């Protein structure tokens, strides 16, 4: 149940809509890069884009191929060193939304970007934390966008917890607790899962057009609760798709 090219466009437009009204977003590589770009061109021109490379308030003249692209730097409002970026801006609590991709997200919103299988003898070595563990701990909330929706990608519990949910953090009650809500929203090719309660489970909030609720529940690795007001995701506007294809990802780096 992986996505085709049209899926990536759809995901990016849905993800962009989630950024309405958000002030400051910390964007990861891939679909989040597309989504923040699209949101800034459409529903949220005042969105302040922060990248893991230290670029703050970027105004790119072309789509960034990665978070350290020179187009993000030229014309940006600031470029911070890593101590200020992660220490002051992120851990200091100034990021409203962290926008990430993930290999696995589980029932309580813990994220795995490290290993598939037993980490002592991993079947697949994934890229690891990067800034994810730092972002999930300290951004006010997290949006995850995933290219797959099946029980391997959405298991009851992640194979390895790179970036913990506040639910897991709370089990270590002797520790100073993270400040953020953790994962609030997970956008998949089938629908949108939300976690309204900081210490609760993900639940099904939206299904995409043509997908029924039972399909989403069956494709999820735990008994997925369905929100009472579950709704259908509005389809992308033609203008959003045109922007993505003709102006943002013209080289088809992420729209694949």
């Amino acid at each position, binding site marked *: 149940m992986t996505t085709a090219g049209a899926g990536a466009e759809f995901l990016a437009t849905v993800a962009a809509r989630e950024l309405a009204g958000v002030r400051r977003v910390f964007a990861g590589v891939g679909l989040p890069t597309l989504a923040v770009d699209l949101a800034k061109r459409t529903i949220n021109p005042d969105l302040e884009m922060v990248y893991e490379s230290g670029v703050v308030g970027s105004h790119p003249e072309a789509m960034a191929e*990665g978070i350290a692209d020179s187009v993000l730097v030229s014309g940006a409002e600031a470029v911070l060193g890593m101590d200020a970026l992660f220490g002051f801006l992120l851990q200091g609590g100034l990021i409203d939304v962290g926008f990430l991709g993930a290999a696995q997200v589980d029932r309580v919103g813990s994220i795995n970007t490290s290993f598939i299988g037993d980490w002592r003898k991993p079947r697949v070595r994934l890229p690891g934390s990067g800034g994810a563990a730092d972002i999930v701990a300290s951004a006010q909330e997290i949006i995850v966008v995933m290219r797959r929706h099946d029980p391997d990608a959405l298991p009851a519990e992640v194979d390895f917890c790179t970036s913990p949910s506040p639910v897991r953090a709370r089990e270590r009650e002797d520790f100073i607790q993270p400040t953020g809500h953790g994962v609030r929203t997970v956008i998949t090719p089938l629908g949108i899962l939300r976690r309204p309660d900081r210490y609760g489970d993900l639940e099904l909030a939206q299904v995409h057009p043509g997908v029924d609720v039972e399909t989403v529940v069956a494709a999820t690795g735990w008994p997925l609760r369905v929100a009472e007001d579950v709704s259908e995701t509005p389809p992308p506007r033609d203008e959003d798709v045109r922007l993505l294809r003709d102006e943002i990802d013209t080289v088809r780096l992420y729209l694949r």
Partner: protein
Amino acid sequence: MAQAGKRMSLTEAVARFVADGTTVALEGFGHLIPFAAGHEIIRQGRRDLTVCRMTPDIITDQLLAAGCVRRLVASFFASGSAGSLYELRRRVEHSDPEPLEVEEYSHYGMVCRYQAGAAKLPFFPLRSYVGSDLPELNSRIRSVESPYGEGRIHVVPPLNPDVTIVHAQRADAAGNTQMWGITGAQQQAAYAAEHVLVTAEEIVPSGVIRSDPNRTLIPAHAVDAVVHVPGGAHPSYTQGYYDRDSAFYREWTPISRDPEAVRAWIEEWVRGTEDHAAYLAKLGAERWAALEVAPAPAAPLSYGRRKA
């Protein structure tokens, strides 16, 4: 520190500061990655290195394939936009052709390690790991009770490389090093190291440096070797000088997937070239021209001077 004698060739600088078994930090966050220095390490056949890099990137895949690395200290294990580093994955997933020791943090964990190393602190605290499996994976991530009564907090140990290598836009002969654009953790990594080797696009008169002292990220007192290496960050980029060779990053994926192809690439492009100038010549003027950037100068500013 004496200012004389810091100018040298890359061959000499690597021979002097990178021995077998050395702990080497090669920093540069997607920008100013010291590729030329990494290639020279390969040419000199160094073994058993501990390589420290927040984002290993293609340079690490190449150092691994060339047999230079025993241990990797890092916080990300892919090449940014261009996907997996397959040599790294073969070493980790299948110990092919030999095991790789990995010491793994998050990005901020690596930054904190350099900060502790630079400031001679026994550890540095951060809030990122409560409930994470990372402390289980890496027993050097530990925790202490806050002496101010708020609870426990995770800490990481200082990282003090034997040598930190960085690439910069410009430096003077004394070693004053100026960078702009994305500067990552270079300042911390430099101050944390026993020795610092700088490669630079341009060696400029000291007056150029002193016309804009805030631009100096690493002062001469921290620098041991200054090497003039134009194009020294290729295939990554140098802000204002040349752009990233994104085509090469895409080409690396199929090369990296095939162990024979990686080794053939290293034979041809690194061991088969005498130095970085020869590597660039082999790359060709046409490919280089495609990486040119249009000028976008900063507005002039004035530091002022006291009137006589």
